[in-house]
């Protein structure tokens, strides 16, 4: 049923439709609304049987999920940013053990400086953990992806992370068509674990594996992700056939036909980019968009196919690898091996900075003029940066840059920034 509903609520209700059996909760913005809503459903008995466990940390949250999943229960949790990093060890562990946990990651920047707003640094930090990472463009897709995620996770015994932009999606109220229970039940069969802690058939899960087999274990995990490259579009198609909605899949192209310039991005910024593309198309510019839904496994072949005709590829990404540049760009570059292309990286929207349609239009114009540099920081206040570097050059004890910049912009007195969380 189509409802005007908050993104978090839509996800929570969809997760509930997936009948998770153990849900672990630890508050962190901007993920909290999701887990709160699930909690209410469990406590009210609307979601049953389900154990809702208020844990003492994200590390515990993932750990509880690990225990539950290994015991054959469908396990779910959600987190963001620092929380993801705090559970990082367990994130890797869940994947290593092949436990099909589904987690919502409400993407948020990573401090310091502490920042509660959206970017993709958190997701990028765990890209090598062995999880499947799916990025939602809208709240509709975020909701739909959760159903597909459980299906995918349990088919392959691989944990899946559904990434949705914090605040931008989680806190946005918009129309979302919430699936009905009978459909979800038919789409998502009960969890049949590949391995389970069973007193009638005991096994030891989590052995120490030495050099003699470790590489093989990791390679097998890699192969399972490659399997996912087949299963993700197949499941998305099955979903689309039943619901009529194009949610999930590996990559999605928009106005890429005859495009000179293709913009590549993850998540909700794709909507704003599409608006900018429409405007630039009207101005006669041959520009299109390729959205990547499956970041891990990275669909190199699909990306190459989608991008190979473009003269210029501009990767707009909400994260970057300090000291180098783009993260997604690096993957795209690897995918484009053997294809002649100009690859440009645009780092944008860090720590919640708005990515405006106007800035994107300008970006496209600049790209169109072939004037885009290899690495660009969208809407960067170069003046503020230069002034801070000058201060740092002048005096050793120049103080913390974050506060200095806020003072520089006149947006802060001496008091620290108050978190809004």
């Amino acid at each position, binding site marked *: 049923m189509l409802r005007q509903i908050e993104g978090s609520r839509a996800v929570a209700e969809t997760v509930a439709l997936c009948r998770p059996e153990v849900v672990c909760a630890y508050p962190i913005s901007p993920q909290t609304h999701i887990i709160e809503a699930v909690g209410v459903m469990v406590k009210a008995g609307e979601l049953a049987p389900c154990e809702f466990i208020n844990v003492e940390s994200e590390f515990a949250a993932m*750990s*509880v999920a*690990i225990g539950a999943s290994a015991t054959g229960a469908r*396990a779910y949790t959600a987190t963001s940013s620092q929380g993801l990093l705090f559970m990082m060890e367990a994130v890797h562990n869940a994947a290593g*053990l092949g436990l099909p946990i589904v987690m919502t990651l409400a993407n948020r920047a990573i401090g310091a400086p502490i920042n509660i707003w959206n970017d993709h640094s958190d997701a990028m930090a765990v890209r090598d953990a062995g999880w499947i990472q799916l990025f939602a463009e809208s709240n509709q897709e975020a909701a739909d992806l959760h159903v597909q995620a459980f299906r995918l996770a349990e088919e392959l015994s691989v944990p899946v992370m559904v990434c949705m932009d914090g605040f931008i999606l989680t806190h946005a109220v918009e129309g979302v068509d919430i699936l009905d229970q009978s459909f979800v039940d038919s789409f998502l069969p009960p969890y049949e674990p590949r391995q389970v802690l069973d007193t009638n058939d005991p096994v030891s899960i989590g052995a120490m594996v030495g050099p003699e087999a470790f590489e093989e274990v990791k390679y097998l995990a890699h192969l399972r992700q490659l399997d996912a490259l087949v299963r993700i579009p197949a499941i998305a198609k099955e979903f689309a056939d039943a619901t009529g909605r194009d949610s999930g899949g590996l990559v999605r192209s928009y106005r890429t036909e005859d495009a000179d310039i293709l913009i590549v991005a993850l998540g909700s910024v794709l909507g704003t980019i599409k608006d900018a593309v429409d405007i630039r198309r009207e101005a006669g510019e041959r520009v299109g968009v390729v959205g990547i839904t499956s970041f891990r496994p990275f669909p190199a072949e699909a990306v190459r196919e989608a991008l190979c005709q473009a003269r210029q590829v501009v990767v707009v990404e909400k994260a970057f690898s300090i000291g180098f540049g783009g993260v997604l760009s690096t993957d795209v570059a690897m995918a484009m091996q053997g294809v002649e292309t100009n690859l440009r990286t645009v780092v944008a929207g860090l720590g919640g900075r708005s990515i405006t349609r106007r800035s994107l239009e300008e970006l496209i114009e600049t790209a169109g003029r072939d004037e885009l540099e290899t690495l660009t920081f969208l809407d960067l206040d170069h003046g503020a940066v230069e002034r801070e570097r000058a201060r740092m050059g002048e005096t050793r004890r120049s103080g913390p840059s974050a506060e200095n910049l806020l003072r520089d912009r006149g947006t802060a007195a001496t008091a620290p920034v108050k978190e809004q969380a």
Partner: protein
Amino acid sequence: MTTQPVHFYQIGSFAVGNRLLSDGERTVQSNLDRTNSIDSGHRACQGCGEALGARYALDAAMRATNGQIVAVNATGCLEVFSTPYPETSWRIPWLHSLFGNAPAVATGVAAALRVKGKKDVRVVAQAGDGGTVDIGFGCLSGMFERNDDVLFICYDNEGYMNTGVQRSAATPPAARTATTEVVGPEPGNIFGQGKDLPRIAIAHDIPYVATATVADLHDLERKVERAMEIHGARYLHVLVPCPLGWGSASNETIHVARLAKESGLFPVFEAEGGTVTSVSKIRRQVPVEDYLSIQRRYAHLFGKHPRPDVVARIQAMADRNIARYGLVDEEADSKEMAE
């Protein structure tokens, strides 16, 4: 003529078995059909107290639950020596995740069992002292506070033995470890630090907290059995000497654990609902020297440059335990003094 009760057995209840006792009165370990939860072929050092403690505890739990146990294990010696690919020594369903998360993983297992309606299957989580008092402490406290239906067993060998004998918050004062070396004015681990986890556990008001050693099997098994009668968060702290880390002879493992208890350095007691309800009295009290001097980690307190001052401080710790828990029967004490 003084009459003696007939209920006297050559070896009383101190030994593992006793042909004169009924099956029910013997330890689980004396039974031919004990589970051997951890089987032969594991790679623990010779005389490993932890291997022994784990088998004792889990076999007892298996008997108490009619074989319905799922175990969660923190990273550490026990995990490493029991499950190196391609061999596992476990005969029960067993899960290892990480060093610091065993309590939380156990919570997850318990939750899954509850949601699956497997009421008869019970969860035991186990870790060394590092995985319990240090890195796992947050998760443990959370598990306690939520009163999750988990029996958490700490096999305390007073240090990080798996990584080569480093100090943990359970390492006692003056003990030598690789990170509390025998150098400087205060050789070994310094006084005034460390965590008394059983008391911290009691402060959580969980239904059951107990300590035990591998030297008193009947006591240990009884406590496991009691713990399995109760639902909610339960904590069992078992002293398991480490020949490697303590520098004790491999055949001394049980003996040294016994001396830890008999000297008063390791109080053996149990608490229900936040109150200490029983105490294992010292049977043959020994000065702490007897315990310390057979361990190389305390060698710097004896020998050429003895440190009676440090030994006296350790004795004071034992005396404080004795006073705190009433470890010495006052009647016996006064009789001894009269003699």
